[in-house]
């Protein structure tokens, strides 16, 4: 019963949070000093042309009317049209979502697959040489500027050694469209050269994006394992003569992993934030790249769309994590 109350309480806050988010993004984007309409109208447009377009886009109405219409449209799933291309924002966002998802998911996988074992090993062999190396590595991961790291990788692996492509998602048009995930689509159509291209293009952006996320995971896993190793339960089991291997697997790792899973919200935040910069450096045609482009073009419908979608995704992930946490450890909630 108490669990249910906690969960409902979380859920009840969901909509006001989203509404608040809409108000914030709207406020920011509508005081933009630039005049996007003049830009959209073109280099040689006359002032009448600009005014006509402004009216057509509804940007001549009072602010509160625009906000009201914006919220109303959002409720209907309509993000409006891009001021720049005049295409629906929802279409643009949807077409770019798979690129970001692929990059993010591969990064999560890579950072978890490397980060968790590293964290476990460095905890088990605490203060060993390996532990120190891992710590230097994680400290670097959190201190390095991702745009600089990305440029270094490009400079070395793409320009000097020519092992990987410099940028982009594939060298051609990509595999036949099924899911929008190039790795999956190329396997589905068994197009190995596309698979190869997609994999090669992923290497540098994933490395850049996974590095700080991995550092976070290592730190959490290491702390979780250390905590678990010192817990009474493990000390007791050990005293009872259970094989250590079993203890590590059954108890320590499980607990450490739960700790990591509850941090997914945080890691997701790191990745989305990282994606904005990483996609811009690597010309990765995803949401982050779209956001940076929209900002450059002062396309505030698109900026609002991106911020809103990111915010909603983030809120949902955190909501799920919160709920998961309530189930895992009700005391914490």
């Amino acid at each position, binding site marked *: 019963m108490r669990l249910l109350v906690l969960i409902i309480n979380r859920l009840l806050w969901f909509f006001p949070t989203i509404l608040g988010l809409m108000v914030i993004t709207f406020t920011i984007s509508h005081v933009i000093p630039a005049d996007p309409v003049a830009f959209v109208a073109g280099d040689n*447009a006359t002032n009448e042309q600009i005014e006509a377009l402004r009216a057509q886009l509804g940007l001549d109405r009072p602010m509160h009317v625009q906000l009201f219409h914006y919220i109303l449209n959002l409720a209907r799933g309509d993000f409006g049209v891009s001021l720049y*291309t005049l295409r629906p924002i929802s279409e643009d966002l949807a077409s770019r979502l798979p690129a970001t998802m692929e990059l993010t998911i591969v990064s999560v996988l890579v950072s978890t697959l490397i980060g968790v074992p590293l964290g476990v090993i460095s905890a088990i062999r605490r203060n060993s040489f390996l532990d120190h190396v891992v710590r230097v590595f994680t400290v670097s991961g959190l201190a390095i500027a991702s745009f600089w790291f990305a440029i270094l990788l490009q400079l070395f692996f793409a320009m000097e050694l020519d092992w990987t492509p410099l940028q982009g998602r594939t060298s051609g048009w990509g595999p036949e469209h099924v899911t929008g995930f190039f790795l999956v689509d190329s396997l589905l159509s068994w197009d190995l050269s596309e698979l190869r291209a997609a994999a090669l293009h992923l290497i540098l952006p994933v490395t850049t994006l996974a590095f700080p996320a991995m550092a976070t995971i290592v730190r959490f896993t290491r702390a979780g394992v250390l905590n678990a190793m010192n817990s009474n339960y493990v*000390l007791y089991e050990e005293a009872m003569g259970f094989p250590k291997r079993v203890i590590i697997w059954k108890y320590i790792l499980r607990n450490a992993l739960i700790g990591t899973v509850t941090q997914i919200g945080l890691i997701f935040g790191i990745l989305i934030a990282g994606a904005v910069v990483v996609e811009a450096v690597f010309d990765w045609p995803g949401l982050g790249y779209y956001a940076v482009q929209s900002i450059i073009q002062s396309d505030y419908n698109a900026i609002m769309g991106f911020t809103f979608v990111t915010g909603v995704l983030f809120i949902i992930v955190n909501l799920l994590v919160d709920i998961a946490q309530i189930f895992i450890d009700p005391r914490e909630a």
Partner: protein
Amino acid sequence: MRKITSSRQRVSIKRGLIPTFLAAVIISVTALLAPINAVHAKNTFVFANASPYDTMDPQVVFDVGRVAYRLNLYDGLLRWLDNPPKLNPWLAESYDISSDGKQYTFTLRANAKFHDGSPVEAKDVAYSIDRILALKKGASSLFVKVIKPGSTKAIDNRTVQFNLNKSSAIFLATVPEIHVMNSDLMKKHEKDGDWASAWVSKNDAGSGSFKLKRYDPAKGFLAERFADHFMGWGDKYLDAIEFRTVKEINSRVLGLMKGDFHGADGYMPQDQIKRLMKSDEVNVSEEESMRIFYFIIHNGRSPMNDINFRKALSYSFDYKGFIKDILSDSVARNPVPLPNNIWGAPQGVKGYTYDLDKAREHLAKVKEPLREITIGALAGYGQTEQAAVLLQSALSKIGVKSKILAETWPVASGKMRNEQQMYDLLPLWKSTYYADPNNWVGEMYYGPNIGSRNNSWYQDDQVDQWITEAIGSTDQAVRAANYAKASTKVMEDAGGIFVYNTKWFGPYNKSVKGVRFCPIGNAQEMRWVYFE
């Protein structure tokens, strides 16, 4: 600290990962060893373009960065070709101009077809100009003042008649911007009176040399040769062209050097051009273009409304340092608001030099109090930032304080239309939209254009009179003389700081032949190109 590890446990940790790892290795190895299929048909030309192709609608944009689809998928009645640019008959085989200069009658070719096989007819031309006027975007500003919607008549299938409000000497020069669209097809896709804008932003309704095959706003477009094009094809041609968006300059350069791309934009920084020239894969062809670089000066605001202050500014720019050291002499000094290589450009004008003593002399004569001035720059366009910084450093030596504001092009272009918001100075380029002197001095310093294309708030009765006369006259000698006088006068008034005229350095794969450069399309029309 309890030590609870042993070698056996470490093995067991690994054991769990082995199958997954192996599977991953097998897949990656297979993928890496897989033969690289020639992703493109052998005869496909791949061009790496800096600007993204946000739309395929030829009538809503009017910039040089995205000119490729307009030139290759669509045709106009006339077309600019070669350098110096010449106006050639294209969809029209001939034209007549009435004696009062208001009526233009074009006769269309009999064999021109759209990509769906239907003939190109006069009604399509009338539809196209009316669509431009209705959408009020792209090139429409060239036409709104001279053509009324609905005034263009299809006399018969092959004869179309434009009826101008007033005679205009530059009308013919702007006709190539009327990209002719298939009106029957367009009307079929029209929704809520949108002139089929939604549909045509992703599709093709043209008659051009190439036919749209694939389009993705995030990637670019692919088009196949249109075998039935009215111009016919020789024995050497491309089967397909692909224009891909590659924003990062290093990627364009590397791709060219590796042979992944066969061509790219011709206005790269000189440091990259030098890199390309060293490559075995790439040829860099050089042409004198018509794209001048200058600082807009806000003539309407104090202290720039004082000619002495403007002259002090003009003497404070290190032309030589900028052209020789920063741009490695890849451009030519151009002292007036007209490219040196267009007819009408005044000959033997010396222009200003970098001379701080003269700058101080003129500054001493300024009556109004000095203040800190704002120099704009276009964020992401390194050259404008470097020019602004260079000017700022010289101005500080003569005691003029300034601050730099690097903003994005949309922000800057918005401010350029607003007398209050406009920067005191802003460095930028003026490209060729139509090859007529009016494109530069006639747009940039003509009184009636203040606030739209005259972003300097410069107004001079004499200059206005010369330009008005030049627009109204069809006598090229009179026009040339007037533009020469006008541009010299603007220079003497120091209406702007005029720096250089660009050279075009087109990087192409060595196997590419037949590239035809014209300042209007920057060699992006591909119908003559072939692989050797």
